[in-house]
């Protein structure tokens, strides 16, 4: 598995290069990578079908317990097969869609990288690895949605999708850490065996909610559903692949994967069924009023994802079986319809509205055939696989009457969308001025394979159920299930409901103009929707950022000092407040008179420096401070320091005095009020630093590193003055750095002095 995954990533990196070297049939060349994966998955089918799973791992960061671990069971196999299988067809489709477009290589790179990340999500066994791939899918999705980067709408949609899914990813990360903590392992394959411990854990509810937010943002559940229809700005191959059959199902995959660990509780059922049903109905109803091809499909995708979460929430073995069947059916018909829709728009010169399309059956017969197959499958007509899925589904939710009602309403909307996208563009009269011709072969293969698949799966539903659905459903349910799918289960109550749904759907289709008009009338309501809330929050964040940058980054040194100093004082103050003030007053050593005298003199000289209005006086008092420092050093056993300080202080005073007659007279630039505030700040700093020094004295390391120097100075370096030995021997490199700084400062000063601003002088 790791090798095949790496091949996919390498293929992504090589894509632009391959395209540049030989631009013909790039897609066909690169599909070797997903094909290898697909074939490998098929060879593992018998093994996984018998309930075995395959684990491969090798250590990554040993110290952190990180491993690169992959795990293949029924559920991952179903998803991985869909991702790689549809990926193959999408690559071919891309080749036709971007024919002659120089950006093809780039697009292929993004989409293959996405495919590899998505395969990573469903195959990874280590939670953190899942998270990494999860974030990679968000990132590649951002690149794909914003692919037409000249278009502001595409850029906004890309940003929106990324912000929503990445924010959800952060919640997910929190949930994963808690989950790993509760389960005591990071390996998914082990976590799912510890469901009992996890659901009893005190953090269970937090884990569930965090994981759900992560999954719901990714899978466009209400109230995060809005990004998905907006993401239709992506080029069609990306929409068909990411936003119908793969990425958006990552959330569903994760919830299904964690069902054995987190499921079977009231909270699980409540959260997932409620959100799922709301999303299912909301998506279906909002789809009714759409007229743009891709948006029609997008809203039903939202709805379908809601249905998947709903079925998972109920969590009986029948609903989980229905879920697995539906995932398969949905991937087939939705990808076909997207590809056909893209083809129609592509070949008619960019027409996107269903109402402007019609009568294309003669111009695009093959697309028409594929669209009909997929559209009918979507509507749930016999003898298509959608019908099988619908039957299983109704059977599964039969004990929950309100879910049956929801299914009928949603199902009717699916019929409408299936007709609108699968039939409407091709039948009836061709509008004036609409020219079209059949799509090229590469764009035909995908729809043909998947469209025929909708039919073939239905007739092969026995083996499909046994080999694909059963292992997947068993993995989700964590018990071995027997799955028997039938195309014709006899005339029963489920069939009646199914037929009622179809009749209602056809009725809705005839009423479509009314829905479109109503939707247009309700448009003003959108400003209260989640999309508007998102926009408001985004704008507010940007405004806040602009405001606080303006406040903090004034470009004036004084303000920076003030902000830094006040924050530092506040932090020090908070620390002291928490510790209950400074405690060590009684441990202080007695004060000797000479220290007190010179210390007092230093304080006095400092105030004199600050208060002085004359240049000379302030320079002199600065000198006094320095010389007192030197004296203090002698009191505490630091003769070297005292000498250095003395020399340097003398030099500084001389230097300042030399520059003195070039300097202007002092004058107060700032107002009295500002000076008072600054004085208060300065006093606060003084107090804080004093306390800090006293507190620091209580913290002494048990064995200071100095003892080493004291002991080895003579033995190893043959020097009696330990300070000197440290400087020139133990820490010689530091001293070299110091000398370098001095040299650079001297060079800089010399250069500045030599610099003559000739031009300005000439102007004056």
């Amino acid at each position, binding site marked *: 598995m790791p090798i095949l995954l790496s091949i996919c990533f390498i293929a992504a990196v090589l894509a632009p290069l391959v395209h540049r070297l030989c631009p013909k049939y790039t897609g066909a060349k690169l599909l070797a990578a997903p094909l290898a994966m697909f074939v490998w998955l098929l060879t593992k089918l018998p093994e996984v079908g018998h309930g075995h799973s395959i684990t491969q791992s090798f250590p990554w960061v040993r110290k952190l317990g990180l491993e690169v671990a992959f795990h293949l069971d029924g559920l991952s196999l179903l998803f991985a097969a869909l991702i790689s299988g549809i990926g193959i067809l999408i690559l071919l489709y891309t080749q036709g869609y971007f024919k002659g477009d120089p950006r093809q290589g780039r697009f292929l790179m993004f989409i293959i990288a996405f495919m590899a990340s998505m395969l990573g999500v469903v195959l990874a066994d280590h939670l953190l690895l899942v998270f990494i791939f999860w974030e990679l899918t968000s990132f590649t999705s951002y690149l794909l949605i914003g692919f037409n980067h000249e278009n502001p709408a595409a850029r906004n949609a890309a940003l929106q999708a990324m912000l929503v899914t990445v924010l959800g990813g952060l919640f997910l990360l929190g949930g994963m850490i808690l989950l790993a903590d509760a389960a005591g392992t990071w390996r998914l394959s082990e976590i799912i065996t510890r469901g009992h411990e996890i659901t009893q854990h005190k953090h269970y509810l937090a884990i569930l909610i965090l994981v759900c937010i992560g999954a719901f943002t990714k899978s466009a559940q209400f109230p995060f559903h809005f990004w998905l229809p907006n993401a239709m700005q992506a080029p069609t191959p990306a929409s068909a692949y990411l936003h119908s059959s793969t990425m958006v199902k990552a959330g569903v995959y994760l919830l299904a994967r964690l069902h054995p660990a987190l499921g079977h509780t009231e909270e699980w059922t409540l959260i997932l069924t409620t959100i799922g049903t709301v999303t299912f109905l909301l998506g279906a109803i909002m789809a009714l009023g759409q007229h743009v091809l891709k948006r029609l499909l997008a809203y039903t995708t939202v709805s379908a994802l809601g249905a998947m979460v709903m079925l998972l929430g109920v969590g009986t073995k029948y609903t989980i079986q229905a879920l697995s069947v539906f995932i398969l059916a949905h991937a087939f018909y939705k990808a076909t319809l997207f590809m056909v829709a893209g083809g129609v728009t592509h070949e008619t010169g960019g027409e996107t509205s269903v109402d402007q399309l019609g009568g294309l059956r003669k111009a695009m017969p093959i697309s028409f055939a594929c669209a009909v197959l997929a559209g009918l499958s979507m509507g749930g007509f016999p003898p298509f696989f959608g019908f099988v899925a619908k039957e299983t589904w109704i059977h599964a939710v039969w004990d929950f009457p309100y879910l049956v009602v929801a299914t009928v309403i949603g199902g009717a909307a699916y019929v409408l969308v299936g007709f609108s996208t699968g039939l409407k563009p091709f039948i009836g009269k061709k509008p004036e001025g609409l020219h079209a011709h059949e799509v090229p072969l590469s764009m035909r293969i995908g729809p043909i394979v998947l469209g025929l698949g909708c039919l073939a799966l239905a007739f092969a539903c026995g083996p499909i159920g046994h080999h694909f659905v059963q292992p997947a459903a068993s993995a989700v349910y964590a018990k071995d299930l027997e799955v028997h799918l039938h195309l014709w289960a006899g005339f029963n109550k489920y069939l009646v409901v199914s037929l009622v749904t179809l009749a209602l759907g056809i009725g809705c289709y005839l009423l479509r103009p009314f829905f479109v008009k109503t939707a247009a009338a309700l448009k003003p309501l959108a400003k209260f929707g989640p999309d508007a809330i998102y926009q408001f929050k985004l704008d507010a964040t940007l405004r806040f950022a602009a405001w606080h940058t303006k406040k903090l980054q004034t470009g004036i*040194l*004084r303000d920076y*000092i*003030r902000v830094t100093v006040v924050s530092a004082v506040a932090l020090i103050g908070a620390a002291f407040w928490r510790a209950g003030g400074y405690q060590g007053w009684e441990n*202080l*050593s*007695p*004060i000797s008179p000479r*220290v007190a005298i010179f*210390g007092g003199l230093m*304080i006095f000289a*400092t*105030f004199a420096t*600050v208060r002085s209005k004359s240049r000379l006086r*302030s*320079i002199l008092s600065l000198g006094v401070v320095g010389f007192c*420092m030197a004296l*203090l*050093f002698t*009191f*505490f*056993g*630091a003769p*070297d320091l005292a000498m*250095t300080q003395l020399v*340097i202080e003398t030099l*500084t005073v001389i*230097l*300042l005095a030399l*520059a003195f007659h*070039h*300097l202007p007279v*002092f004058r107060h*630039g700032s107002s009295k009020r500002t000076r008072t505030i*600054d004085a208060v*700040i*300065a006093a606060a*700093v*003084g107090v804080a*630093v*004093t*306390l800090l*020094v006293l507190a620091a*004295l209580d913290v002494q390391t048990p064995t*200071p590193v100095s003892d080493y*120097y*004291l002991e080895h100075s*003579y*033995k190893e370096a043959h020097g*009696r*003055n*330990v300070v000197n030995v440290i*400087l020139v021997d133990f820490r010689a490199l530091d001293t070299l750095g110091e000398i370098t*700084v001095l040299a650079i400062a001297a060079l*800089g*000063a010399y250069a*500045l002095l030599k*610099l003559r*601003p000739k031009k*300005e002088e000439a102007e004056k």
Partner: protein
Amino acid sequence: MEVVLAIVIGALYGGGLYLMMRRNLIQLIIGLGLLSHGANLLIFTAGGLRGDVAPILAEGATKFAVTPADPLPQALILTAIVISFAVTAFALVLFLRTYQTVGTDDVDEMKETDT
């Protein structure tokens, strides 16, 4: 003993930062000087004061009879003193040139002298 030094350090920090918040550039440089004194003394004191014996081994001895003052902060401060001198000197020259070129010592007025 430490308490005196702590108060001195506090005064140096307060005074230094107050001067650095002035608009006059020369006051800024003097403030920087006070602040570096404060920082040096802070390192010196925070390392712990261990009496007045210098860390210099007597002639002929191979071991210290009494624990001397901590040599490590001394080495650090020695470097710091020299470097702060370099910084002060450079800042002073930079200021002098700036003053000669733009004709003001007020940092706020310098904002309008971009040429």
